[in-house]
C-alpha cells in the first residue's frame, strides 16, 4: 500500500486565523492537484502557538474553524490532518484533528506533553487513539509529544498499531538562526527516527514557518524543515524558510507492523529498550 502525503509547511501569522486559513486552503488545493492522499498541516494554525488571542477567540471542535477543513476535505477528496486550538467546557486545548476524504472528523487528539510556557494557554489532553483508514492505522500526536523525554506517547501509539504517525508541529528556533545553520540538530530527527525504527512506522511531522509575534516565545521563529521518516531514515525534508509556506510532497510505502502486544515488549527488549532500568 502506497500513500502520497503533502507536508503543508504553512506560514502562520500570530492572531490572524482568516489569513492563515486562506493560505492553508491554497496548500490543500495544491495537494489535491498533486493527487496527494493526505495533507498534513502544522500545529495551532488558527492563532499560532501560544498567541494570546487564543483566550478570547478559540473555537469548539466541531466548530466554525474545523468546518473549513471538513468542507475542504470533502470538496477535494483528500484526508486532512490539522492543528487547531479548541475551546471545550471553558477550557482551551492544543488539538489536532484527522478528517477523512468524506469530510468526517475521524480522530481528535489534544496535546499531552505541553511545554511549561504553554500551561497558561492549554489544558493537558486526556486520551490517545489510532484510527483505521484505507492506508492502515493512523495515530496523531503534536510537536513536543515527540520530545526525547516523552517518547512514551509515540510508543503507546506504536503499540496501538499505528502504521502512520502524524504530528502537526510548531518547531521553534531563536531569531538569530539563519539558513546556513542546522536549525534543530538532533532535536527532532533523533526521536522521530527512533519511533519510526522501533515500531516500523511512517512518522510525518509538518511544522509551520513564521516569525513569532505575541506570547511567551517572542524572539523566536519557525523555520520549517518538516520531516518524514521511516525505519530507514529521512524520506523527505522541507526547506528552511521563515516567511513563505510551501507544500512538500512525497510518496512512500505504508509500513506494516510485525508485532502486537507482548511481542512488542520482547522486540523492544531485543533492541535494548527497557523502560524500567533507570527507575
Amino acid at each position, binding site marked *: 500500500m502506497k500513500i502520497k502525503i503533502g507536508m503543508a509547511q504553512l506560514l502562520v501569522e500570530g492572531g490572524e486565523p482568516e489569513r492563515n486559513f486562506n493560505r492553508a486552503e491554497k496548500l490543500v488545493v495544491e495537494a489535491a492537484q498533486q493527487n496527494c492522499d493526505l495533507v498534513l498541516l502544522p500545529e495551532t494554525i488558527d492563532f499560532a502557538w501560544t498567541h494570546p488571542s487564543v483566550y478570547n477567540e478559540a473555537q469548539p471542535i466541531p466548530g466554525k474553524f474545523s468546518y473549513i477543513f471538513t468542507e475542504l476535505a470533502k470538496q477535494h477528496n483528500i484526508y486532512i490532518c490539522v492543528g487547531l486550538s479548541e475551546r471545550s467546557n471553558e477550557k482551551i486545548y492544543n488539538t489536532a484533528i484527522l478528517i477523512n476524504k468524506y469530510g468526517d472528523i475521524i480522530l481528535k487528539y489534544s496535546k499531552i506533553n505541553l511545554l511549561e510556557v504553554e500551561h497558561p494557554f492549554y489544558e493537558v489532553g486526556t486520551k490517545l487513539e489510532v484510527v483505521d483508514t484505507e492506508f492502515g492505522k493512523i495515530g496523531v500526536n503534536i510537536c513536543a509529544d515527540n520530545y526525547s523525554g516523552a517518547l512514551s506517547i509515540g510508543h503507546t501509539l506504536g503499540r496501538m498499531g499505528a502504521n502512520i504517525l502524524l504530528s502537526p508541529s510548531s518547531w521553534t528556533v531563536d*531569531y538569530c538562526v*539563519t539558513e546556513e545553520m542546522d536549525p534543530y540538530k538532533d532535536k527532532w530527527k533523533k526521536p522521530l527516527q527512533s519511533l519510526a525504527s522501533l515500531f516500523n512506522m511512517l512518522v510525518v511531522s509538518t511544522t509551520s514557518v513564521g516569525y513569532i*509575534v*505575541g506570547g511567551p516565545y*517572542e524572539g523566536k521563529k519557525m523555520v520549517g524543515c518538516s520531516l518524514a521518516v521511516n525505519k530507514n531514515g529521512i524520506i523527505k525534508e522541507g526547506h528552511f524558510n521563515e*516567511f513563505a509556506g510551501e507544500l512538500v510532497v512525497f510518496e512512500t510505502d505504508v509500513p506494516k507492523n510485525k508485532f502486537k502486544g507482548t511481542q512488542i515488549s520482547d522486540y523492544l527488549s531485543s533492541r535494548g529498550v527497557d523502560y524500567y532500568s533507570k527507575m
Partner: protein
Amino acid sequence: MDKRVVIVNGKPTNFEYQVCSRCVQDSTVPGIKFDKYGVCNFCHIHDKLEKIFPNGEAGRKILDKYIEKIKKSGQGKKYDCVVGISGGRDSTYLLYLTVKEFGLRPLAVHFNDGFDNPVAGENMVKATRKLGVELRTISSDWREAKELKIDFLKASVPDLNMGTDIGIASSLYGVACKENLKYILIGQSFRTEGIKPLSWSFFDGRYLKSVHKKFGKTPLRKWKPEDPGFNFGVKELLYYSLIKGIRTITPMYYWDYNRSAATELIQKELDWVYPGAHYYDDLYHSLIKYVHRVKFNIDMNMNSDSALVRSGQMTRETALERAHGIYAIEDPKVIDLCIKRLGLTREQFDEYMSYPPKTFRDYDTIYNLIRLFKFPIYVFSKLNLIPRITYDKYFNVGK
C-alpha cells in the same frame, strides 16, 4: 494666489500653495522651492544626479568597471557580493540583473522584522531558487523590533520605520562583514524613487537610540560586527567602510531601469507577483501610509510618482490624479493587523495619533554633526563609501 492652508509635516503654514510645473510635488513637501519657471528644487537635483549617474551606454561602462572590481574582490570566495532583497520589484529585478546580466555570484540578504508581506516572501523564495542564489535571512529580535515601532509612534515623527531601515542596513553590512565580502548592491534608483525630504525619512542610528532611550523600556542588544542588531551609526559605518572596506553600490543608477519592463521580465522569468504597491513588501507600510496622510499630510507617493514623471515613466496627469489620494494599501484590515501585532489596542494607537506632530529635529540626532562634516560626506559619497545620494539628501533638500 491659492489661499488654501498648506500643512507641512502636520503643521499649518502660511506658505502659498504651488505645484511644480514639471513634476507634481507641491508646497506640502518640506524644503521645496520653485524657480521662476515654477520648477522645484527636487527636479533640479534630479537633473544633477542624471549627469553624475548616467545610464545608457555611459552608465553601462561605469557599471562594467564596478562589476569587474566586484568579481575580482570575490575571487576565492563563495560569493562576490551581497544583494539586499525584500521581494518587491526593485530588489527582485536587481537580483535578476546581478546574476543574469552582470554574471555575479551574489548572496541574497533579507531582513525580517515581523511585518513581511507573505506575497513578497514567496517572491523571494521563487527568485532565489530560480536564480540559484543562496538566501540569508536576518531576523530581528521581535521584542526589540516591536518596541522600536511603538517608540516611534510615541515619538510622533514620520520616521515610523526607522527600526526596519536601520535593521536592513545593519544586516547587509553584518553579513558582508561575516562573509568577508566587499560589495553590497542595493536596488535604489533616484529615477524611480526620487529623493525624500530629510524630515520624511531621516536615517540615523543616534536618532533611533535617542527615541528608544526616551520611550523604550528594554535596552537594545549590543553591537557586534557580524551581528549588529539595531546599532548602525557613524561609528559602525566607519568601521564597515574604512576598516572592513565594504562599499555600497546602487547599480540601478546606471541602468536603463524601466519599471513596467522590469515588472514584465520578473513576472515571466521569476514568477514574481506584485505585492499590491511599492514598498508593500512590508505590511507595516499600510499603517505608515495612514499615519502619514492623516497626521502629517505627507504623501510619499507624490514624491516617488514625481520621480517617475521626471524619468518619463508616468504621465504628469496620472501623477496629479494620484497626489494626496488615499493609497490602495491603506487597508483597514491590515492597519488593524499592524496595531494588533504590536500588542496595542486601537485606543492606544489613537492616543499616539493625537500627539502633536514632530520631526527628527525634536530629538538628539547626528544632524548638526553632519552639517559640520559636509566636506568629508561629499568625499565619502563620491568614493561610494556611503550611498552616493547621501550628500544631496542632507545638503540640497535639507528640510
